[in-house]
């Protein structure tokens, strides 16, 4: 294509990407320099590496495998509550990990519903700690994500193609091979890669359900090197390993998510003429719904009592969490919007690469690096909250860009000629075309960032001392102190806060959006 004029400059986005690069790479450099003095890679570190890979592979394969029949069922069935269920599939992604873990323990744990039911038949209780607990929790979080990504793939198959296939009398396998398999071949690798990458950096799940020599992820090992031994060199060495791992995974993810030119089909609800078995679809939909809903309902039920008599430190932690989340979301939008615009107007692979860097760098690695960099100047615990907000924003960046970039690209493709012919450029185009056209996606991204930050239990655990805590950290401490009722009440409060802010922002973005 001949070079075309563009209505907006990529420079602010390149600037934002440079800031992110400086933060991520700067902390990594700090880590790498420090790692030199870290000594040898111990036997337990090899075990951590092996465990990290094993659980990530298992989690991504199981999540994606289960997601295929569920997404297919959702794509071709219309039933009451379908919208709610699809919205709910988005929930685990923004669900605070600590809340889900509490719910999973209440359902699948030693004293959980299922173990009790098994005991009724004289069967032994399930053991939820260790590898299967970690994989179970990861599937809980990523099956819905995988389902949504695949469902999106199904819905991007233009309705016209289904009509055409119906007219050609394609059914069953023929339909699958003609329309669905090509879509899966395109979407599935990226789903696997994304879930794998997410599970690699798993910290909170491993912290609560793993642990011990046989179920420690590298992230958790970094934390332990920090808090138990205060061995910065070893933490840095582990961080370097983690970095190599996640960078490789991110590169793979990036490779598999090559964009195709988007094909436009009119936005009607997909109607299909090939029957398929309703019973099988019903099974997958209800099984997935139950798997997601049981732990959540359990938290809600057990939390209601605790909510009435929450200790004041929980409320204090809640206020802190909200403030951190608001700051984090603002930082995120400040970075992500110019970056999305830059990607939309040109092939700025630098900006895209930096955007994915957040996936490659784990929060604990950046946290370790920041700790090393900051310590000579200020007491790291004093800046625990700003650091948490910043790291959360960088962590949300890849997801925000995934949401924002396609919308920005579509807006630029559709309206750049019109805007240029009207001489609308720069901030005018940004403010009066790009932002309004992307409002729904901005709301979604902001809601996501808000909820992710609110529920984050990662870098805060490194930096915080006993005096300061965000709500997830406070809940973790309550769980550790066996104050289960207060923990459940706090978990319900956290659930309401993060889901509530996500809902408000996402809804706000889509309010009265014209097509």
């Amino acid at each position, binding site marked *: *294509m*001949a*070079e*075309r*004029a563009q209505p907006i400059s990529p420079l602010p986005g390149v600037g934002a990407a440079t800031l992110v690069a400086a933060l991520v790479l700067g902390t990594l450099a700090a880590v790498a320099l420090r790692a030199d003095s870290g000594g040898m890679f111990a036997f337990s570190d090899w075990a951590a590496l092996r465990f990290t890979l094993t659980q990530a592979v298992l989690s991504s394969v199981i999540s994606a495998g289960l997601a295929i029949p569920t997404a297919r069922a959702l794509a071709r069935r219309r039933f009451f509550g379908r919208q709610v269920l699809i919205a709910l599939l988005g929930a685990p992604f923004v669900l605070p990990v600590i809340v889900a873990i509490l719910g999973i323990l209440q359902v699948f744990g030693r004293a959980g519903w299922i173990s009790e039911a098994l005991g009724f038949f004289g069967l032994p209780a399930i053991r939820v700690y260790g590898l299967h607990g970690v994989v179970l929790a990861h599937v809980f979080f990523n099956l819905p994500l995988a389902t949504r990504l695949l469902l999106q793939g199904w819905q991007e198959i233009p309705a016209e193609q289904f009509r055409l296939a119906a007219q050609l009398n394609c059914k069953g396998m023929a339909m699958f091979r003609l329309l669905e398999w090509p879509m899966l071949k395109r979407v599935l690798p990226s789903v696997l890669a994304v879930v794998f990458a997410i599970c690699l950096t798993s910290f909170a799940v491993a912290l609560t359900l793993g642990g011990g020599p046989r179920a420690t992820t590298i992230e958790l090992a970094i934390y332990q090197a920090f808090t138990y031994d205060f061995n910065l060199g070893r933490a840095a060495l582990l961080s370097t390993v983690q970095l190599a791992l996640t960078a490789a995974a991110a590169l793979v993810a990036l490779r598999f998510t090559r964009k195709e030119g988007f094909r436009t089909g009119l936005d009607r609800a997909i109607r299909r003429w090939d029957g398929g078995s309703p019973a099988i679809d019903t099974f997958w939909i209800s099984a997935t719904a139950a798997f997601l809903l049981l732990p959540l309902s359990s938290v809600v039920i057990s939390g209601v009592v605790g909510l009435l008599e929450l200790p004041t430190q929980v409320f204090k932690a809640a206020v802190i969490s909200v403030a951190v989340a608001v700051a984090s979301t603002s930082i995120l939008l400040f970075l992500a919007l110019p970056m999305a615009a830059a990607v939309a107007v040109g092939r700025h692979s630098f900006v895209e690469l930096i955007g994915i860097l957040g996936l490659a760098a784990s929060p604990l690695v950046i946290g370790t690096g920041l700790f090393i960099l900051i310590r000579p100047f200020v007491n790291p615990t004093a800046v625990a909250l700003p650091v948490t907000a910043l790291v959360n924003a960088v962590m949300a960046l890849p997801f925000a860009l995934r949401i924002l970039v396609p919308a920005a690209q579509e807006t630029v493709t*559709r*309206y750049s*000629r*019109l*805007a*240029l*012919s*009207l*001489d*609308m*450029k720069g901030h*005018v185009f940004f403010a*009066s*075309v790009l932002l*309004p*056209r992307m*409002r729904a996606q901005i709301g979604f991204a902001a809601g996501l960032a808000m909820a992710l930050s609110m529920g984050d239990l990662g870098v805060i655990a490194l930096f915080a001392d006993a005096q300061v805590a965000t709500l997830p950290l406070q809940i973790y401490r309550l769980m550790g102190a066996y104050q289960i009722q207060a923990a459940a009440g706090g978990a319900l409060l956290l659930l309401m806060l993060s889901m509530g802010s996500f809902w408000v922002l996402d809804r706000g973005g889509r309010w009265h*959006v*014209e*097509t």
Partner: protein
Amino acid sequence: MLRLDECVIANGDFVLRANLEVADASCVAIIGPSGAGKSTLLEAIAGFRNVKGGRIFWDGEDLTKRPPGKRPVASLFQDNNLFPHLSAEQNVSLGIRPNGRVSKDERALVASALGRVGLLGMGTRKPFELSGGQQSRVALARVLVQQRDLLLLDEPFAALGPALKAEMLDLVAQLISGTNKTLLMISHDPQDARRITNKSILVADGIAHPPEPTEHLLNNPPTSLRDYLG
């Protein structure tokens, strides 16, 4: 007067050459087989596509390097002529100021332009509250307030259906009659070309030919055009 001086316009591997003049205040159809480069020609004139060689002049002024918004050109595209999140009024206002912030006098100008295209009192509606024909009228109102001398139509009414399309073309002809505006419109339908244009540019075999009288061209079509017209 629009002058394309030895222009070479590339679109991928495809190359279109144009060496022609269009007189002021004329209505010119651009006709030719599909894929012959009609849109490519308009894109070059509007500044969306750089020319590889040659120059484009308007009244002796060199436009070749000017960005689209600084050319005396108003365009109506096949689609996406309006911003869906802005009201009719706001869309038209953009023709006066790119940031849409218009003064009171300019507001009156916008209202009168909407009146001239038959949308009196519909200024606050958004595109999705208007019919296809009304949306085209909003875009035309914006063209009116833009006050550019050269109007390029890349089949903006193609989706409207024959009667409505004819109505819109008549409206265009009526709006520019008596002004000094020059109209260039791509046409797939000889009837449309006959309806409002007196000259036609034939685009075929990699060449945009100089305008000649529409009737003459359509009655004595060269081979490439005859195959297309059938």
